[in-house]
């Protein structure tokens, strides 16, 4: 089943480019302006069905930001605390929403489509692959424990099982990397991951979102803070 089909499609390339520009500009501006909310509103509308889960993730990410903001409150620098808090949340929300439904591979593919250096994209591809395989190993292990009736407790068996699992993850990661090396040898890898795809499939959403995002970044009216 292709999950991306049921959602408004924003091409990975667009997502990567816009996420980079939005976060750079928002992070480096002296002030936050009201128009910067526009792309967030548009994205929010596009992902209206998933808003709840997006905000849940944002909430957990905010625990980190809260620590930073709290340290500023401690110094009674209220304005800076608010600025840091808002800024980080603008960027996080933008990134969370624009990459919604995209996995590590689509980001790597976007880098390839943008014609970034081969070395960089290949490293990204193989990193994405490793992350994916380790993630799957992790899920598999969790399911095994579940199926075999393992109850985590604070006892020796739990610690032993967990330690064993971490060990196995390391060994598997090492094994996978050896196999990757073998595949590279056999299949004639010489520094480039090729693609047959010549064109990029941008939709009307890409254009709209790009327009709104760029507009929001240059239209410096109505400072929020």
């Amino acid at each position: 089943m292709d999950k991306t089909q049921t959602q408004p499609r924003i091409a990975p390339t667009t997502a990567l480019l816009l996420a980079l520009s939005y976060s750079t500009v928002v992070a480096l501006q002296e002030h936050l302006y009201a128009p910067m909310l526009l792309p967030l509103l548009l994205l929010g509308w596009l992902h209206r069905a998933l808003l709840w889960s997006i905000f849940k993730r944002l909430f957990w990410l905010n625990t980190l930001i809260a620590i930073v903001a709290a340290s500023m409150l401690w110094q009674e620098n209220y304005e800076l605390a608010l600025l840091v808090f808002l800024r980080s949340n603008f960027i996080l929300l933008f990134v969370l929403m624009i990459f919604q439904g995209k996995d590590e591979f689509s980001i790597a593919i976007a880098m390839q489509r943008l014609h970034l250096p081969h070395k960089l994209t290949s490293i990204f591809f193989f990193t994405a692959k490793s992350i994916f395989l380790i993630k799957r190993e992790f899920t598999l292990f969790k399911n095994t424990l579940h199926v075999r009736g393992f109850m985590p407790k604070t006892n020796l068996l739990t610690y032993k099982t967990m330690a064993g699992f971490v060990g196995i993850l390391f060994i598997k990661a090492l094994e996978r990397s050896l196999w990757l090396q073998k595949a590279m040898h056999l299949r004639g890898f010489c520094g480039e991951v090729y693609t047959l795809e010549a064109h990029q499939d941008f939709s009307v959403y890409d254009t709209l979102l790009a327009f709104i995002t760029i507009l929001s970044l240059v239209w410096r009216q109505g400072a929020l803070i």
Partner: protein
Amino acid sequence: MSCSVNIKNLSTSRDGVRLYENVTLDVSHKEKIAIIGPNGCGKTTLLEIIAGLRNLEEGTLELFHQPMHSLEDFKNMRHLIGYLFQDSDNQFLAPVVEDDVAFSLLASGVSKEETKLKTAMILQDLGISHLAKKIVYHLSGGEKKLVALAGVLIMEPKLMLLDEPTNGLDQAMQLRLVDILGRIDKSIIIVSHHKEFIELVVEKIYEITPTGLSCSLNLKDEHNHHHEHGDHPHTH
């Protein structure tokens, strides 16, 4: 006789445990053979040695009449050897199906247009054209196997090493594979636990034992034998 693979007195151990000794094997041009044996007897290890992924401890190995002494010698042979890994995940280099299938051709400098045609053809042949734009890691086990296989077939290697090619394939796909492999006029070594399948594809079946490789079935000679007795109508 012209040979693709020529192994003499090969012995192999892993972690100090001897897997087998005195393996001798000749695979002639365009011959298809299968290697069978229990789990852990060293079938995958043997394929890795033939593909130059593992050093030879004892014995000699010749590929297309060239002695292979070190892993360096295999460098010139790479494009002649196709290897389907037992675990397809290990094989993929590009994330999108068609890009991965096309990989070896593009890497060897074939033009994009030609590669595109060939890729489409091979995907069609395997009946998986609808997967072309998908992410390889999001496919089912059997689909992954087919994509990995397409990536091997597209190179038209002179020697194909297939480790468990039918693993995860349904009945219809297995028969399709029998047909595809039957049409290929190259040397093929299949490792498989799937007896009915290999009997449909290969001419000889070897069994790995601790004391070497023994030919447990030779359909080729049976075939000749029939013909010596005259022209009785028969089916194969």
